[in-house]
């Protein structure tokens, strides 16, 4: 069994708080909220009309010439992943086929990719002409669809919507020929992808990996699903900045959004050899299930989250009191926040009262499969800066919540961070990251 230490040497984040990780960090420090009225489509008729959307971009500028024709096969999820991946690769100082094909610094066969991806919803406007060609007496006619409707769709239509296509495009751009996986565990996908990628490196199946998560949730299908499941707040359409209130007594639901977060993972030895700046070490990884007959919510005691946290702490070989920061899922859905808070409190024991807890979805929105990666990147930056910014929108903690939600920013060394999350539908995840500064032998 290999026992290779795995470190993070590059980060890339494309979020409602900015085009890159630095802009996101500035937003988090300033307590800025990236949530606003939906622009992607007219949300009239939707109970929740707000979301976290990323700024404008021109995808062709982010894609090397040899892959530019393929931009027409990119759904928005794929585009966001390409942009964040480029940033992470550049930030790590890696030279790939995309950046300089003559001076590539990495063996493509030893390069892995692992992306947490969501269910990519079809573009309804793209489908509609086909539907329009399939109407009989004002109603949809499957018989016509099978001929005229189907033929009106572009031949490669399906390829835009396969969740593995994020890794496929990013992999072609950067020439990644090692193991490629696409974790489709909803909102916990990015944590699981990063955890698995670290283990792929640890076991020797690759030396470097791009890992993270990406999802573009701001489209009518995903948004109506959140509305129907009553996960979203409909109380703050006129006041988007205060809408998402994790662990707050006035929380009314989550606010969803879009984004992408990618990190570069590699062996400690490899990073030291090439003189890379090392941000953090991945030291603990846990995963479990929430078992709840009403599986659209966490089980009330959050046991599946607790087990994941306990596994991650045990693998990291630390006690709860060693943690300097917890970044929870904190969706802003009152009953799920209550369950998660219970899980964290049960896992951390008496240490829960003192460890700062920093929920960030109040600012970034809930970016689904991207959320875990964005939170890992926030953790890495907190370590780098020695700062834990203040949470927003949690003025009065919900009844029974024992978490120490951080209300004032603190400057202090951040050595160990716990990040945790859960999907709607069951899977839970937790990661422990360790600040690397001066810890070669640590």
């Amino acid at each position, binding site marked *: 069994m290999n026992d290779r230490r795995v470190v993070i040497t590059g980060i890339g984040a494309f979020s409602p708080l900015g085009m890159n990780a630095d802009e996101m960090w500035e937003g988090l420090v300033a307590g800025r909220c990236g949530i606003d009225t939906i622009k992607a*489509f*007219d*949300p*009239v*008729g939707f109970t929740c009309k707000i979301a976290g959307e990323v700024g404008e971009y021109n995808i062709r500028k982010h894609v090397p010439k040899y892959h530019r024709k393929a931009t027409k*096969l990119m759904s928005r999820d794929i585009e966001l992943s390409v942009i964040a991946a480029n940033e992470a690769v550049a930030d790590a100082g890696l030279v790939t086929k995309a950046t300089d094909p003559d001076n590539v610094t990495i063996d493509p066969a030893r390069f892995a990719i692992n992306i947490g991806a969501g269910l990519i919803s079809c573009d309804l406007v793209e489908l509609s002409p086909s*539907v*329009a060609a399939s109407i009989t007496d*004002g*109603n*949809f006619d*499957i*018989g*016509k*669809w*099978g001929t005229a*409707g*189907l033929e009106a769709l572009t*031949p*490669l*239509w*399906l*390829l835009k*919507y*396969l969740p*593995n296509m994020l*890794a*496929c495009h990013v*992999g*072609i751009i950067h020439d*990644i*020929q*090692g*193991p*490629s*996986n*696409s974790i*489709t*565990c*909803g909102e916990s996908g990015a944590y*699981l992808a990063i955890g*698995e990628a670290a283990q792929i490196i640890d*076991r020797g199946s690759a030396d470097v990996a791009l890992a993270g998560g990406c999802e573009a949730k701001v489209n009518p299908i995903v948004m*109506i699903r959140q509305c*129907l*499941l*009553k996960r979203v707040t409909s109380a703050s359409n006129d006041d988007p900045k205060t809408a998402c209130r994790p662990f707050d007594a006035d929380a009314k639901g989550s606010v969803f959004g879009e984004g992408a977060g990618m990190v570069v993972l590699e062996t400690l030895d490899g990073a030291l050899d090439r003189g890379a700046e090392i941000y953090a070490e991945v030291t603990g990884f*846990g*995963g*479990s*299930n929430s078992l709840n007959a009403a*599986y*659209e919510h966490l089980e009330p005691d959050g046991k*599946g989250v607790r*087990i994941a946290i306990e596994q991650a702490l045990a*693998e990291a070989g630390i006690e709860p009191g060693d943690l300097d920061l917890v970044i929870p899922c904190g969706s802003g859905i009152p009953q799920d926040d209550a369950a998660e808070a219970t899980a964290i409190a049960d896992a951390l024991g008496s240490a829960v009262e003192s460890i700062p807890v920093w929920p960030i979805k109040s600012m970034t929105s809930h970016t689904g499969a991207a959320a875990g990666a964005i939170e890992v990147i926030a953790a890495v930056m907190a370590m780098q800066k020695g700062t834990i910014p203040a949470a927003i929108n949690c003025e009065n903690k919900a009844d029974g919540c024992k978490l120490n939600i951080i209300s004032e920013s603190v400057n202090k060394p951040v050595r160990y961070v716990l990040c945790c999350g859960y999907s*709607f*539908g*069951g*899977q839970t995840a937790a990661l422990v990251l360790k600040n690397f500064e001066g810890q070669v032998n640590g």
Partner: protein
Amino acid sequence: MAERVVITGLGLVCPMGHDVETVWQGMLTGKDGFATTTIFDASTFPSKFGAEVKDYDISRHTKNPGLHAYANRGSSFVVGAGAEACRQARIDVETDSPGDGIDRRRMGIYLGAGEGSVDNDVFFDALAKAWDNDKQEMDWSVWADVAFGGMHPLKELEQEPNLPAGHLALLTGARGHTRSCLTACAASTQAVGEAVMIIRRGQAAVMLAGGAHSMIHPLGVTGFNRLTALSTRNDSPHTASRPFSASRDGFVLGEGAAIVVLVSLASAKKRGVEILAEIIGFGSSSDAFRVTDMHDEARGAVQAINAALADAQVTYKDIDYISTHGTSTGENDSIETLAIKTVFGDHAKKVPASSAKSMFGHLIGATGCAELITCVLAIRDNILPPTKNLHDADPELDLDYVPNEPRKAKVDIAMSESFGFGGQNNVLIIKRYD
């Protein structure tokens, strides 16, 4: 020393039956799973037939069908396959106090599972009503009205690809490491492979691994038909899937769920459970070539096969049988043959390599694990399942594809290959356990 990983349970719901033995006996007696599509009206589609799971009744597999009432087809099938696999592996299901001696925190799940169908009636109705074709514009308020009126919250949730794993967790009470991946047609091979790694690492003692998927719905068939990936041999569904033949014209879309129970050798011995085979090798790679095509020199497939052989610490000469990806598409069967020849060299023609998809179709995310199960049975019974419908050999494809009839042969080590759209290549190697 890493834990050795063995298989102690098999479960299969597929177009040829709802349990492993029925499917296997069918494969050995010339049966297949192909018929005219009935799930929706496909009578005007380019492909009007498929490989559907027929007459499946979830209440025969669970005491608690209400818990799975809104399950999509894949999730529903995984309950049946999971229950069967657990029964064989002597794992208690649907109980708060299992008596099987397995700590639920040490029991995880890893599926290669697919999304569920959209709720077709309301989905298309909303578009039909809200789209103004003259203006080429959507009236979102009309769309929202129809959608809010017709969509059911849980039916929407059930479209998410992580739900089959959720249903399997509810069935078994698994609380260990759980993941679900969707690397297209290679997903459940990848899931089993990564699950093996979780046990080797010591992070779980038991993993329920496999896949579940159904894309037999209007948008799924539309997508594959537009890609011209499906056979359109509508006049002869039973002979449409003809991997490695000169006249192959695409795969036949199937659906199903396949589960293997993986356990550490130590745990299997401790519990005294029958060991069906050992998983000795896993290799994974990606093509990084084109969105639409496999690497033209089979680079990624070769890398995955070599990685699996290296992981298993065997050479190509040790492989007694290959369960191919064998989709019956022009490209896959040629590139896969090239990959085998590249790795096996002159020895390639001596290794029987057949395609189960000639009988049960292409189960997409679930297919890799279903085929792995046939490898376990080939070892158990020393019989090679055939490639059906192989009457006109492609002159370029000259391996021993075990044409048309099953064959008795000693099988100790078998390899199962899966290659997914987008270039993910995954290969598993299993071995007789003695």
